[in-house]
């Protein structure tokens, strides 16, 4: 059932273009801000920017209901924002403040919004596989009608857990959609070298489930495929495999030496910028894009201000939240 498709401009019925553009802009400005905070020495650890990949997270999330589950990756800011996360609490978490999502205990790689059924970014490549598949098992056992989406990068294509969970989900017909964000590199490792067998979507055939590769820089193509697979899963027909070809404009994280790819390659991908493509469609639909950009910028600035003005966690919080 493998097919490769890219249908720029093909709109799926479920897509709210104004909301999608707002979310994509929010993700980009949030992660640009995160990078500058990191470079200014205000963030610890590191940050993995989602910049360039916005169409994937937003395109998929626009196909979901609020009660559907999502598991994410180390590059998780975009998924949290697209699932309706609060950028103020996210920014505060990046700065390790008590008002952050985890009260400063998790940082960039461990932001979750359990109330919104966002099961967290994850510091382990493949760490979200079990979370999404298990959420799908809960949905099936409790007949809640929820679907789970598992985002993972091309690096996770080489992890054993992907095989085990896909196989389990396929034999149990669990309502889960595996979304591979193929941004071409796992740190410095090119996916066209590290992934055997060519197009990863072809693997789906081995599990007897649908697989498809789409242009991950195209919001509408992502959304259309996601809608189809999510509704198929919701109907009880089991998992599917969606591969979105995309690109991270920045390095793996803020400290990436970027000695493994050519500037020309980056420029070629930037020419297909997912936000510019959606902006054109939004303008056609009568959206005041300039005003929206100003609003989003103000929201992100407000988030930074909120985070900077928030207190550090109290040391007496160190040993809390280990056990329920």
């Amino acid at each position, binding site marked *: 059932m493998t097919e490769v498709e890219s249908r720029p401009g093909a709109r799926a019925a479920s897509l709210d273009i104004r909301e999608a553009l707002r979310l994509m802009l929010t993700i980009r400005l949030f992660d640009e801000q995160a990078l500058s905070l990191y470079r200014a020495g205000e963030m610890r650890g590191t940050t993995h920017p989602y910049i360039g990949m916005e169409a994937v997270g937003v395109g998929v999330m626009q196909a979901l209901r609020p009660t559907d*589950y999502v*598991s994410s990756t180390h590059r998780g800011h975009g998924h949290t924002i697209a699932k309706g996360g609060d950028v103020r609490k996210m920014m505060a978490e990046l700065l390790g403040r008590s008002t*952050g*999502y*985890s*009260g*400063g*205990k*998790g940082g960039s790689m*461990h932001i*979750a919004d*359990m*109330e919104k*059924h966002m*099961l*967290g970014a*994850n*510091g*382990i490549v*493949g*760490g979200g*596989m*079990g*979370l*999404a*598949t*298990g*959420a*799908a*098992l*809960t*949905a*099936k*056992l*409790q007949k809640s009608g929820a679907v*789970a989406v598992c985002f993972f990068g091309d690096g996770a294509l080489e992890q*054993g*857990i992907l095989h*085990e*969970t896909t*196989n*389990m989900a396929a*034999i*149990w017909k669990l309502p889960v959609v595996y979304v591979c964000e193929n941004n071409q590199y796992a740190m410095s490792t090119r996916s066209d070298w590290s992934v055997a067998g060519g197009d990863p979507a072809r693997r789906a055939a081995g599990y007897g489930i649908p697989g498809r590769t789409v242009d991950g820089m195209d919001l509408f193509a992502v959304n259309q495929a996601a809608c189809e697979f999510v509704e198929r899963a919701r109907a009880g027909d089991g998992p599917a495999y969606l591969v979105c070809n995309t690109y991270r404009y920045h390095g793996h994280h803020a400290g990436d030496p970027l000695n493994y790819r050519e500037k020309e390659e980056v420029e070629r991908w930037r020419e297909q910028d997912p936000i510019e493509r959606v902006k054109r469609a939004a303008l056609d639909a009568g959206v005041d894009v300039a005003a929206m950009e100003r609003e989003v910028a103000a929201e992100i600035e407000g988030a930074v201000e909120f985070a900077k003005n928030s207190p550090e966690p109290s040391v007496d919080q160190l040993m*809390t*939240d*280990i*056990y*329920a």
Partner: protein
Amino acid sequence: MTLAQERPVTESLATREITYAEALNEALREEMRRDPTVFVMGEDVAVWGGGGIFGVTRGLVEEFGTERVRDTPISEEAIAAVAVGAAATGSRPVAEIMYVDFIGLAMEPIVNQAAKLRYMFGGKARVPLVIRAQEGAGRGNAAQHSQSLEAWFCHIPGLKVVTPSTPADAKGLLKSAIRDDNPVIFLEHKALYFSKGHVPPEEYTVPLGLADVRRVGRHVTVVGVHTMVGKALQAAERLAEEGIEVEVIDPRTLVPLDEEAIIESVKKTGRLIVSHEAYTRGGYGAEIISRVVEAAFDYLDAPPLRVCARDVPVPYSAVLETAALPQVDDLVAAARALVRNER
């Protein structure tokens, strides 16, 4: 918690004897009846021999169906990982890893997901998960089917670790583990499955974190895990004939550990032996000794001793396996040495 606290199991009015495996089966059955979010998953838990290689899940599929009693593929990492995801979203999975030796394949979701989600998310996640596995030697299963690996899990903040040694504790502790809102590593011992003991017919649970003083004595404290509780009781019988009174403590749960029970006992006896089938080096016995030394050094009349497995892969031959594992004779010799200053 103190020794004087109520100990509902060993002192209860038990009137019937069932096996350790049957007691575990009762716990699963009762909790699945009580709470529809409880379900069982693992390799060969439904079909094989009517449920499980040691019969722990026997008959459950007939009562609860294949949705709640799920045979899985041979995928230990996915068993643990999917169970974590189910637990974080409102289910109470009881996932089985057939032999604890296989759990190396499943360490990532246990150690980095189950144990840490709650903390990493600032207390906003709950992972009410039980992972059952059986460990231990004595059946000639050799190096990859005989280990006792409890120390691996005791090392990780966020996990609880349970090691029942009697049928009554097996049932009461499993019920508590299922009701607990944290990930619990529930380690059974393969040589204990067919041991029989009194199990109260009425509803009861055994709390996590409460040790059981299995025998009272004043000369030396033996803290035993799993089969070493029974061996310590045998050693105590023999030592009593020569006037050495052994106090035998079964911690029942290693995390949380009823430190107070152990420390109070050592304050009385002045001597401590820890004993488990896990390897001596880096074993949990060393942790127990450290805690006692830190808290009650001045009460010690002799250096604490470990009577644990030798640091060798568990051998197949009965002669070699017996030599690798701590035996009653080893406990007797250690206690004599401590009490008579013969070290």
